[in-house]
Structure formats: C-alpha cells, structure tokens
C-alpha cells in the first residue's frame, strides 16, 4: 500500500478534523433575537480537498468486505452488490414520507412487492417493513406476541430463550417488560426439549429461537419444540439472523414459527455500513396480521394504500423504517430470484463446511450450516483473532457463544472463492501454530497496534473536547 507521511514523533495515526481545521464563529446579527441564540460555534472547517483527503485516509484505515474475507460469525458479511446502491439512489426514491398515498404509488408498490417476497421466503402470511434493524424487529415481534396474549385476555410474563441465543433476544424481552427464562443447551448444542417442557407453561409468552442456531446447528426437534410452546399457549419467535443458511430449504413458517424478523443486511446483502443501517422486517402468520405496526401497505384494485391494522401495536419507527435499505434488499431479491437465493444458501453452507474441514482448530459441534464455532483450545481466542489481523484477514467472532471454549465463530458466507477460503484457512493454521507470546503481541501490521480497551473504559474520552492532548 502507499506510503504516507508520518513523523516518528507523531502520537496519532491521523489528526482529528478539529486538529486540522477548527474554527470559531461568533453568532452575531442572527435572524433571531440574541436571547434565543447561542454565542458562538466551534467546529472543524476543512475545505473540500482537505475533507476528501481526511476521509479517504480514514477509509484506508478500515477493513470492508471488498478488502478481504470477513468471516464474522452470525453477521453474514456477504458481498454487497454495487448496483443496489445505484438503485437506492434514484431521484424518485428520494421523496418525503408525508405525501398522500396517491402520490407515492411507486414506493408503496415496491413495499408491497417486498412484503410479498419476504412472506414467500419465510413462509409467513404478512410482513411489515417498519422495523429499522434486527433488534427493532425482535421488539416488534415480542410486542405483537404481547398484544396477542392481551387480546386473549391472558397475562403472560415470561419469554424463554436458549443460552446460545443472541444478546438482543434477552434485551428485547426485558425491554418489552418480560422476565427472561434462560434455557440451557443440551450436549449437542441444541435446545434441550426436556428442559423446554419444564420451562414452558401458563406464564410463557414466547420462545425466541434462532434456527440454525448460533453454532450453525439446525434444531432438528423444531416440530416438537413448536408443539411444546404452542401447547403451553405461547408463541414461537424466529430470530432471522441465520436465515442465509436455509433459503429455499426450510421456511420458519413451515417449521411452526408464528413471528419472525428478517435481517436484510445479512440475508439480503444490504451493506452493514460500519454497524448500520439495517432493516428488520417482521413476518407473522395469518392470525397475527391484525397486530402489525401502523401503518401497513395493502393493495386494492391495482392501487396501494396505507391502513392501520385493526389491533395494531402502533409504531416502532417514526416514519416507515429504513426505506433506502429496503430498496436495496428488494433489488437483491429481484436480481437473484428463486435459483439465486437457493444457490446463495448452498454455497454459504458449502463454504463453511469446506473452511472448517481445512483448519487445524477443533470444531466440536455439527453438522453445521452457514457457520461453525471452532475452539482455540489452549489459546486465548481474542489474542488469536488479533494475530489473524497480521495475516491480512478479518478474524471470526470470538469468545461467543460461551458453550464452546475460546470460541471462534466463523461464517465465511457464499461470497468467498475456494482460493480465498484456502488463504483464510492458512491464516487460521498459522495462528494455531503460534505461541501465546506471539499472539499477545499482535497485531503489528494493521493501521493500529493492539488497542488498550481497559484504558478506554476506565478513563472515558468520548469526544475531542475530552482529550487532554487535543
């Protein structure tokens, strides 16, 4: 890569914008009376050429899917097709949400079609696009379950969640006011149906489940699980984080799930954007459609309109959700169609299996699908991950799920070639052979050396105003 000016005396990799070009403007002769205005404003003031170099430089200090393999387990870092960006940037997509329905027929038509596509893919009868992320989808789904029970005049206070589940499941249940009942996995890494039978009852509002689970394992007893939950009067919630493993092979609706969310930034290849935006549409089976968020899109005689579902839970986003993200997801699904979606899953699963086969680390559970959890064994998984950075690849998710010691949770996605998987496997194996000292000293090659997390948390400096040296 290109050399870049650095002075050995520099104590930073790239100055802050505020260190480059801060300016203070006194607020004078404002269009408002003085007592309604601030006195001054101090912010960076780079001209466009400086701005461009600053962010170009920052981008060079960041690793994306086009930089190399990005096998973060449970994150589905697949390739984000360029053309979906162009599609979402269409001027006729950049409209205001408060227009009357009759003037946004195009937008509503696209939403209606996407609802339909998602319904078919998940085996669900109705889908809302409003939740702006996966966790927001979970919240929507759990609020729907709550509304369902309330409509049945039932008070149910518990949500059951396996110990291997995503942290969001627990937090969502708590946010909705539920008590969390944590379910231990069985020795095979799956739901322990006996423990489940013991856990569910009159207080069970729902079971939240990912399938395949975070170990990549399909919950083979899903029908029994569904029966247990349904017999207890609870609902079955599907966390769609791992849907990329099953496209066209199994549908949550067919497995007995009542509610689910889709992570379009995982399964449908919209870019993760350094943490967001995503979108978390929620699908429900027919009887639950009346609880969907307000408003919902329906078609009448070729025209589209918003309406409020009769027992709607209300809103989970101020407007209609993350529209540009939804456009990208629509474009991705329309591009791939049935065969493409099926193939994406097949190749994602093959890539995970192939990679697991190539590496020296032990993979205790299986058969897995789109991801696997290896164990770093005697090594510290976090240190091993740092060392992988030195080999130029992004490491897997580490130390989670806790069911595996020193977990390396690995999801290569369908976007890798055999060549890049071999390269990735070589990095795993090189690291596996190294000693603790080497791992602890890593990384040395990326933009920054090992960063002190403890110092960051003990002495929080969350803005340039808080820096002593700035």
């Amino acid at each position, binding site marked *: 890569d290109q050399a870049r000016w650095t002075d050995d005396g520099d104590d930073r990799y790239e100055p802050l914008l505020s260190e480059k070009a801060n300016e203070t403007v006194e607020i004078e002769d404002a269009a408002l009376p003085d007592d309604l205005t601030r006195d001054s404003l101090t912010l960076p003031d780079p001209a466009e050429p400086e701005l461009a170099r600053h962010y170009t430089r920052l981008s060079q200090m960041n690793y994306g899917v086009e930089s190399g393999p990005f096998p973060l387990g449970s994150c589905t870092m697949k390739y984000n097709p360029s053309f979906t960006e162009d599609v979402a940037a269409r001027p006729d997509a950049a409209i205001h949400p408060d227009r009357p329905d009759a003037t946004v027929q195009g*937008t509503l038509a696209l939403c209606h079609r996407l609802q339909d596509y998602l319904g078919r893919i998940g085996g669900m009868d109705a889908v809302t696009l409003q939740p702006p992320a996966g966790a927001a989808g979970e919240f929507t789904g759990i609020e729907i379950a709550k509304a369902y029970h309330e409509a049945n005049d039932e008070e149910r206070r518990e949500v059951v969640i396996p110990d291997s589940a995503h942290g969001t499941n627990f937090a969502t249940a708590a946010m909705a*006011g539920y008590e969390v009942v944590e379910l231990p996995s069985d020795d095979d890494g799956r739901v322990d149906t006996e423990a489940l039978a013991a856990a569910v009852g009159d207080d069970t509002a729902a079971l939240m489940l990912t399938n395949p689970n975070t170990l990549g394992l399909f919950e083979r007893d899903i029908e029994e699980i569904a029966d247990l939950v349904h017999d207890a009067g609870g609902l079955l919630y599907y966390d769609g984080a791992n849907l990329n493993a099953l496209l066209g092979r199994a549908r949550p609706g067919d497995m007995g799930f009542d509610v689910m969310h889709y992570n379009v930034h995982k399964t449908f290849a919209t870019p993760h954007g*350094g943490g967001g935006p995503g979108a*978390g549409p929620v699908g429900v089976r027919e009887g639950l459609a009346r609880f969907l968020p307000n408003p919902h899109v329906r078609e009448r005689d070729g025209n589209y309109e918003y309406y409020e579902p009769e027992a709607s839970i209300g809103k989970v*986003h101020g407007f209609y959700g993350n529209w540009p993200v939804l456009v990208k997801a629509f*474009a991705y699904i329309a591009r791939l169609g049935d065969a493409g979606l099926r193939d994406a899953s097949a190749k994602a699963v093959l890539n995970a*299996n192939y990679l697991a086969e190539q590496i020296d680390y032990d993979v205790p559970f299986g058969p897995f699908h789109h991801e696997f959890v290896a164990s770093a064994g005697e090594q510290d998984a976090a240190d091993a991950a740092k060392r992988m950075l030195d080999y130029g690849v992004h490491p897997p998710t580490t130390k989670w799920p806790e069911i595996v010691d020193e977990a390396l949770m690995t999801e290569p996605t*369908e976007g890798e070639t055999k060549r890049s998987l071999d390269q990735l496997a070589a990095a795993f194996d090189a690291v596996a052979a190294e000693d603790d000292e080497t791992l602890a000293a890593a990384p040395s090659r990326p933009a920054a050396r090992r960063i002190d997390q403890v110092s960051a948390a003990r002495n929080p400096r*969350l803005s340039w105003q808080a820096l002593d040296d700035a």
Partner: protein
Amino acid sequence: MSERETERGSPYAPQTAAETTAMLDAVGAADLESLFDVPESVAFDGEFGIDARSERETKREVARLLRRNADLTEFLGRGHYDHYVPSVVDDLAGRSEFLTSYTQYQPEVAQGFLQALFEYQSMLVELTGLGVANCSMYDDATALGEAATLSQRVRSVSGDRILVPGHLREGKRAVLANYADGPGLSVESYPMDDGAVDVDALADAIDSETAMVYAETPTVRGVVEENLGAIGDLADDHDALFCLGSDPVALSLLERPVDVGADVVVGDAGSLGTGTAYGFGLGMFVTREEYLRQVPGRLVGASEDAADRRAYTLTLQTREQHIRKERATSNICTNQAWVALRTAMHAAWLGPDGLVDLANECVTRPRDLAARLDEVVGLQAPVHDRHHFREFVARTDQPASAVAGDLLDEGYAVSEVGEHLIQVCATETTAEAEDGLVAALSEVAK
C-alpha cells in the same frame, strides 16, 4: 454474462463448478443438498415464485415501479427535512471500506470508522454542550423512546409519567408509547399556547411522579421555543429529566441545550447528510456525563495502542446487549453508523460558518415566505405569532384538504394539519420553487 445470470445460481457466489466439486469432495459430501441437516418433515420443496433478472432488468423493474411516484415539489417537513447534501459525501461515504464494514469489534482494522464516529460524537457535544453523545440510534422517535427509559433508570425516585408537548408528531408519540410499554411508563400531553409550550399549564401538570419532560425546538410546527430555560427549571425542580428535541442545523444557531438545563438531547441528525429519504433518519442521543453508564447504544472512546499512539475503540460495552443481555441499557445492536458518518461529513463540509448561515436561512426563508403567503387572498400566515425555523402553519379560508389537494394538481405538496390549517416547509432546496408555490396558492386558496 451467462455465468452472471441467475439461472445457474447467485452471481455473487463466485465458486466455479469445478471448485464446487472439489470442495464437496473435500468435505465428503455427495452434493450440495446433502449439506443441509433439515428433517424431511419441515423441508421446503416448493418455489418462492420469484423470477431472477439481470442487473439491467432489475434496475428497469425498480424504475418501472418508482415511476408511479408523482413528480412533486415538496414543501414538506414535520420532522424530515431536505437540506442539500454535497456530492462529496456520497463519494466518500460510498467507499467500500466504510460502506461494507461492520461494527468495530476489531478496532485495529477499523480505526477509520471509529475516528469518524468519534468526530461525529464530538460535533454533537459541541452543538449541545452536553458531555456524552452516542454514535447513533435509529431515528428521533426511537431516541426519544430510549430517553424515556433512561429517565426511569437514572431518576433517584420512582415515577412513571412522561410529559410531552401537545404539538408532537403522531408517529413520534406512537413510538414513544411502545418504548414506554415495557417499563410501564405513561405518556401524557401538556398543552401549547400559540404554538409554543404553555409553561403555566406545564407547571400545573408536572408533579413528583414525572420522570421526564420532553419539549422540542423547533416544534413540529416549526416554532422556535422561547421558554426552554423555564421548562428546564420546572423539570429540575421535580427531579425530572428534561429531554430536548432538536437537530444539528437548528442547534447551530439556537440556544445551547446545556444552557437551558437539558439533560438529554434527541432528534434527527440526518437532517445533515441524508436529504429526503422517505423518513430514513438518524437518532441523535446526547446526555450529561453523569448518565454515562446508563447511555443506550454504542460509544466510541479514545485510547492508546501498543505503540502509544492515540487510537479509538468501542467502549463501555458492558452496557450493551451482547454483554449484559437482559440487563442492557437497550436492545439496540445494528444502529445507523453509516448515516452518522454522512452527517459528520456534511457538517464538516459546511463548517461552522456554513452551518450558521444555513440555520439563519432556515429562519429567514420561512419568515419571508409566510409574509408573502399572508398577502394571498384566502390565507393567513403564520398562524402562530412566533419565530419559526424551516416551516410554519398557515390558515386557509377554504378547507385545508381542498387547498392541499388542489396544490397537488399544480405539482406542489404541503401538509394538511387541521381543517383549515396547512403547513409549509421552506429550506434552501425550495428556493427556486417558492414563486411557483405562491402563484399556485394564489389560485387555489381564494
């Protein structure tokens, strides 16, 4: 291209057929289907019935759908604003190292995004005067919801009332209601007086059970709130959190939230960096340092690396769901980091002088337009005798629905906010369209 077509599979799954065979051999599988450990009884053997398309055809299909949107000049606001976003923001934010990266779990290879988010946080600290900004929430409504739950966590005494202004966007209130549902908070409105907070009425409404008072400036009707200090004092007197709704453009000119006693500032920071995007937003969340460990969402902090250089990392993650699970400060995981990146870029492009100029234009432009509309037969504007920011409400002699509807036919969209009330939003992007709007209203309002 034939291989790029989807008949044979995903164009984004790059294995060749030969590679697939070799890899199946390596894992000892007969074929791809045998890799799926799915019991027969739940296997899906149907079709979705979704046709594959080439990239070109997909674009045409989206174009065909979206062409059904009417071609309108929008004078719409009410929480979603159109400020011009410079091309360089699209260009830089679109770089794949930013766009396709993930949450910065490995900070050593994510310094670029972390620094950009740190800079975003810092800008919000300057704009609000408060000490801690998180690096994004979904939108203003969900940020408000998070503020309500924060109020319950940090308040020293119990109390479940959340007081909100009578003029509040319906959607925002509905989201707040859902966030309030879990912790059992009750959301109640207090009245307005000529478009601004009726401070006396608020004083009557507030009590020791009040966990949080929310106010906005500008309000959903564009009114610049003049009594923020008094509202802050009221909240303070009752040990309630004072949550202020605003946005970065308004905050460039208006009183600093810290100076009026605000404890939390929420709003849509996407008014910079996003433009009109059908309600797509960026939840701003800024609060006092004392609430640091109760803040929802991600925080970027400065630290040092092994070479003793300044470096950045996500920090205080023990607040978050992936560590704290059901005891987390929020369930948020995926956020709007990339939108925050764009906002920071846009703010830096404008610079402080540009921001202040833009904010001033948000005062003068609606002021001038209201004055012109006030001279139109059948209109009185503005309805509220207040300072306005970006937008204002006008009274119509004709039914508002008829005026707004007829305007659509002329190619202009305004909001209908009462039987005889319309709302008009004017920013720099409507500059060239205002003459046309005045002319059209002169026709349809009389």
